[in-house]
């Protein structure tokens, strides 16, 4: 195999993946109740079809898609809808959600309405079918998968890029999926490549997962134009733009999408899910979640019905340690801190990372000494030092000249800053203000 490819800049945070990397995916018991928010993806929320009191089956559609950039929602368990009510959402808001009481002593067999003979279907029907399966990007962004597959007029996809980097520290769910579900992945690749008419597919994996690379290489079907690409272990290698740079040496132009350089990127977990969907009709009703961190007593990788409460999972993993101070959905670089233990696992929840007091205590901020460490870390080649000093004094308009809107908030600058300046946090605020301003400008 050739030398591991990569992008320029980026950082090398401690990986902490050994906590869970060696453990088999473990299925959690069905809880007594699941919470299914209508907004689990980017785009319009789903529209409820089932009503309180209805009996629903595992895998049955209970809410229709709210538009093209939206997906339907499936019951992740067999049971009874007890309410559609406001519930704590992992993003910090209160949002409408189905509450389903799980049927006791149910076999929880799959409500079989999705099995298909995919080889006979035209691409447009396959895309619709994937939407019907409720698929969104499982890497964390939760962008509806079918939208990426529907190539706009005048554009075409040459390459399908499967993202198995999992560059966030602590997370190992994609790693386990690649080790255990290789056949599902390759079936998914086959379906997606057929939809896109792609010349070739690539599966990109960081070299800290050699076992996964070896497993996948040994299982590539002979008739599939698919190549394993080992990439250097570096954050944020899994960001779409970095991935395309590393694998194909192409840059997505600022403000454009991967399809503009003829690439479609999908997360490896999503692809495995799609493979299973076409193999035996299981829509997106469960997902693999890494439960890890020094503040959880029994770190592990779980297969969880979507909608399972955080508290159920923590209990399954032996509970939190005394010094637990933060629970993140997602990794420590870009994850979302949780305030409530009753929030549900969403389609996009790739991991639950439990951190201790020591890891989250606030650090003294010093003035910027212009050491340029942030410039050497930024994968987009921005100037976080200059942006930071503009943001500190709320000179947001001037930040546009320094390309603030290209910032993808990976947090590499905050990670390296020796003066502990909360750079990416300030950039998020600045981008929010600027976006609002742009929207107002358009409205006027």
């Amino acid at each position: 195999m050739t030398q591991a490819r990569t992008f320029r800049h980026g950082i090398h945070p401690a990986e902490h993946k050994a906590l869970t990397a060696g453990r088999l995916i473990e299925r959690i018991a069905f809880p007594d109740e699941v919470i299914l928010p209508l907004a689990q993806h980017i785009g319009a929320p789903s529209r409820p079809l089932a009503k309180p009191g209805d009996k629903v089956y595992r895998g049955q559609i209970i809410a229709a898609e709210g538009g093209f950039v939206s997906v339907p929602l499936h019951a992740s368990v067999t049971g009874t809808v007890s309410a559609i009510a406001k519930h704590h959402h992992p993003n910090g808001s209160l949002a409408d959600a189905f509450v389903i009481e799980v049927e006791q002593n149910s076999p929880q067999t799959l409500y079989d309405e999705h099995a298909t003979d995919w080889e006979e279907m035209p691409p447009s029907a396959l895309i619709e079918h994937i939407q019907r399966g409720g698929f969104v990007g499982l890497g964390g962004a939760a962008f509806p998968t079918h939208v990426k597959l529907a190539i706009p007029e005048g554009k075409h996809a040459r390459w399908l890029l499967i993202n198995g980097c999992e560059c966030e520290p602590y997370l190992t769910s994609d790693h386990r999926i690649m080790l255990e579900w290789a056949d599902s992945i390759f079936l998914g690749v086959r379906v997606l490549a057929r939809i896109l008419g792609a010349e070739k597919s690539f599966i990109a994996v960081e070299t800290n997962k050699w076992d996964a690379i070896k497993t996948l290489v040994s299982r590539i079907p002979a008739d599939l134009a698919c190549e394993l690409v080992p990439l250097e272990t570096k954050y944020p290698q899994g960001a779409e733009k970095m991935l395309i740079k590393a694998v194909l040496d192409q840059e997505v132009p600022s403000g454009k999408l991967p399809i503009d350089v003829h690439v479609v990127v999908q997360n490896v977990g999503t692809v495995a899910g799609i493979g299973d969907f076409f193999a035996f009709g299981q829509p997106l009703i469960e997902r693999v979640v890494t439960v890890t961190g020094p503040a959880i007593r029994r770190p592990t990788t779980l297969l969880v019905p979507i909608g399972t409460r955080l508290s159920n999972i923590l209990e399954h993993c032996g509970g939190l340690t005394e010094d637990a101070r933060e629970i993140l959905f997602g990794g420590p670089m870009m994850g979302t801190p949780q305030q409530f233990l009753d929030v549900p696992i969403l389609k996009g929840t790739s991991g639950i990372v439990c951190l201790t007091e020591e890891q989250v205590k606030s650090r003294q901020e010093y003035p910027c000494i212009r050491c340029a460490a942030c410039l050497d870390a930024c994968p987009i080649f921005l100037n976080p030092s200059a942006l930071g000093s503009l943001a500190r004094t709320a000179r947001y308009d001037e930040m546009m000249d320094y390309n603030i809107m290209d910032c993808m908030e990976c947090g590499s600058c905050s990670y390296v800053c020796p003066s502990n300046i909360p750079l990416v946090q300030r950039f998020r605020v600045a981008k929010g203000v600027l976006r609002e301003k742009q929207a107002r400008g358009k409205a006027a």
Partner: protein
Amino acid sequence: MTRRDPQFVIATPPFAKRAVDTPAIMRHVIYALVPVMIAAVYFFGVSALLLIAVCTGTCMLLEWLLTGRGNLGNSPVRDGSAAVTGILLALTLPPGLPLWMAALGSAVAIVFGKLLFGGLGQNVFNPSLTGRAFLQACFPVALTTWSPQGGLGAFLEMRGDTLALPLLRPVFDGISAATPLARMKFESEPTDLGALLFGTIPGSLGETSAILILLGGAYLGWRRFLNWRIPVGIFGTVYLFASALNMIDPGRFTDGLHHLLSGGLVLGAVFMATDPVSSPVTPRGMWLFACGIGVLVILIREFGGLPEGVMYAILLMNAATPLIDRITQPGIYGAVDHRAGRGD
């Protein structure tokens, strides 16, 4: 619906953090300077020790008094940058300089060079060099009176007028020696390169042993506490420019290696020009900054009235830093070439 669990803090990612902070960087700069300081004390005895102590002490004391409001716990002096300023200033001074002058220079360095701009990170000019420029302007004779070296045996011997009283005209006795650059400039007499490398030459505290400074710089570069582009750019420019001149007229112009190793060039390139606050942050800006310093050093040394020009070269390029930063912004990932979109 549950109440928020008080066990959990409200914070924002990233939660992973590199362990090195700003005070740690300052500490490591001081570690890297320790061998240079030891060499200075070895070569120039107790005079050197007193100079370093007075400069460092003055800088730290003044920063504490003027910013900490008497509370040491939250004083910026704890970040260590004032100590670095003091040590670096001391290393640019001649060993026999009266201590009161050193204290005055340190006060100018920390007050005018740093605090008046707003403290750490805000100053335009390198504070140590600001202090030294002030001293050079006020006491040109004292600042260019170099005492010869002695080994450990001469430890307790005062070099020059270390303990002179303030504002009294110092009496310079016979024990002064010319620096290699002055010998070259005024007597056209080169110094052995080996002596330059190991520092057995007259000069300021820190300009003597090139090899120890380079070692310290290599350590900081390896730990990524200083940016290698700046010293490499300066050395490259000085060597190429000086060698080119030397090739044109070997009788008139000194050769590149002699320029590289003599005077304050090594100390300036490794520890002064790399001061992150007063140098550019962009990679291309650093190269431009370094080349500017290299060219100015040779212009001053070869065509100016002074034997040494490192200090003025760095200060001038410090002034150009904001402009350099602005015109050398890095090209971002996926930059759209706006010229390509013009309708024609």
